[in-house]
């Protein structure tokens, strides 16, 4: 019981790191980025190449994955995404689906279509018992890393100058522009950072979620669910939503394996009907 809760929390934390970039992009620019998972996949495969082929230690691979994915994200944002912000939602969807198709085929071509695993150090493998709860070492690492990230994100958002600019832009981009905030610049930085976080999440999550070229398609729904359920006006909303979904998914798959996948989709649809603004969101400022 508590073990499931623990696994669920680890899973939820992971989802949060993967999806929080998407939450901000969606809230800030009203941009539907279905290709967010592609950046997560990029992070996963970068770590894979570094750790499995180049022999770098796992803990060195993670930050490199973050930085490289953030750079890729920033590059794509400046070169391509920036032209699509003012287009219709349909165009945005088509554009990002196009990017997903490209990433899936390209990774398939370079890395092969089979599922791959990153070699994690032996110290992180296995489980130990603590107060009767079976704790997987790797999952504990995920919780610690993601927990630190969450706190750091919260601090950045709430008590730095950049954070307050970002919050202002999310709340009302027009007024923020009027106050002299460079909303596009804020957005580019946030996009890059969010992509980096997704890359880190992809690297961390390869062990649990599995890593293969269809990753962006498989988990696209999960990211979108986190954002729609959590709302995009704060960081606590997506965080709580991630935890909820992580626990519900793990518990659902454990207790009612036949209906495991239904649980998530049903929760999503019901919530969308009852609370279109998201579970934890207040009414939008726009």
């Amino acid at each position, binding site marked *: 019981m508590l073990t499931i809760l623990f696994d669920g929390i680890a899973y939820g934390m992971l989802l949060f790191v993967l999806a929080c970039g998407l939450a901000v992009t969606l809230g800030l620019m009203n941009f539907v980025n279905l290709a967010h998972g592609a950046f997560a996949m990029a992070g996963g495969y970068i770590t894979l190449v570094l750790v499995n082929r180049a022999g770098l230690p796992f803990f060195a691979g993670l930050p490199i994955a973050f930085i490289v994915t953030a750079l890729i994200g920033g590059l794509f944002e*400046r070169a391509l995404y920036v032209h699509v912000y003012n287009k219709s939602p*349909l165009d945005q*969807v088509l*554009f990002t*689906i196009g990017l997903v198709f490209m990433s899936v085929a*390209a990774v398939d071509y370079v890395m092969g279509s089979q599922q791959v695993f990153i070699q994690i150090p032996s110290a992180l493998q296995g489980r130990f018992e603590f107060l009767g709860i079976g704790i997987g070492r790797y999952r504990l690492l995920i919780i610690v890393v993601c927990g630190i990230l969450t706190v750091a994100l919260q601090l950045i958002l709430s008590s730095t100058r950049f954070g307050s600019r970002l919050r202002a832009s999310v709340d009302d981009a027009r007024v923020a522009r009027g106050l002299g905030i460079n909303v596009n610049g804020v957005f580019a930085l946030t996009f890059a950072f969010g992509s980096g976080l997704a890359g880190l999440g992809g690297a961390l999550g390869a062990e649990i979620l599995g890593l293969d070229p269809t990753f962006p398609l498989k988990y696209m729904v999960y990211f979108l669910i986190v954002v729609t359920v959590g709302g995009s006006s704060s960081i606590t909303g997506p965080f709580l939503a991630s935890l909820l979904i992580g626990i519900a998914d793990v518990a659902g798959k454990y207790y009612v394996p036949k209906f495991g996948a239904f649980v998530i989709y049903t929760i999503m649809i019901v919530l969308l009907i009852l609370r279109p603004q998201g579970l934890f969101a207040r009414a939008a400022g726009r």
Partner: protein
Amino acid sequence: MIEQVTHYLAARARWGAMEYVFWLAALASVFVCGGYWAELSPLFANRHLILTEIAWLALFALSLDLILGYAGIISLGHAAFFGLGSYVAALLAKHAIINEPVLALVVSGLAAAVLGFATSFLVLRGSDLARLMVTLGVALIMREVANQIPDITGGADGLQGVSIGPILGMFHFDIFGHVGYVYCLLVLFVLFVIARRIVYSPFGLSLRAVKGNALRSSLVGISVDGRLVAVYTLAAFYAGVAGALLAQTTAFASLDVFSFERSADLLLVLIIGGTGYLYGGPIGAVAFKLIQDSLATFDPQYWQYWIGLLLVFLVLFGRIYGALIAVIVFAVSHALRLSFFECALIMLVIGIGYGHIRSGLNVLDARIDRLIRRSRAARQGLLQRKA
């Protein structure tokens, strides 16, 4: 006043010359591409199998056009109805419940329409994003349902051992796909004519009003929700029939019918063909299949990469220039044997130069515009001189 309105509606609904040309060409394809004249030239080889695919894809895209082009609902899960129709048709035939394909087709469509009606209320609420998610969620749930009841659907292996009876008890499906193609084309034509009548009726006009501005149209007395539910249900029926056509012509149904890629490809089909004039679906289906077919011969395994590239450029530069640039990038990277990543770099460079390219294209547009206007003026001058 009322006379004027009826007159206007009748004038709008009149069949244009190009429409006759289109359907005559479709009719001609039955004979020209049927392989009957294959001795004359390889050009006349039998293409009925791929034409069959084009026909049901056209119907499927037509169904999406009804909600996207006429009601403005973006759906990422239209495959839900397609898939349901497909499975219903296959199951009806497998268990010999209804052996006659046309009747089975109608029943499959109705089953999809029931699902469409039930889920239409979910689509009414919320923004475009919420609609995307809800439609996507419905398709995923349908796929999961089909996956979880393998006793009925055959699960991941698909539904095998389906045998389809003769159409109207007379025409057996043959392995060359002749009968199948004529059958699909006839169904497409009949449903197209019905859809055409519907969108040119006052109901169709009110749908356009809703798409244009829901609040204003409710102020002039149009029941917005009612219209959306009706058209969504209708579109689900069409999608179900399209799915049933697939199941009947291939005698097979698998989980693949619900896949996300199917819904996404469908959007691409409609974007290539254009929305909101009904021919977008059929034209897009022809273009998409031709693109897919030629890409698959160039690059059998990774053709989806190029589809993705095409999507990106279509959005960035519009339909004509986007396709042109995508073709150029494809040709260049093929000639130079570039890897996918180098090709993506080219895409990024084009993106960085977007502003320059865009203004270049605008200049080009203006030039073409001027040329057309000048030739038109010249022709008019000529006519006047003759008079």
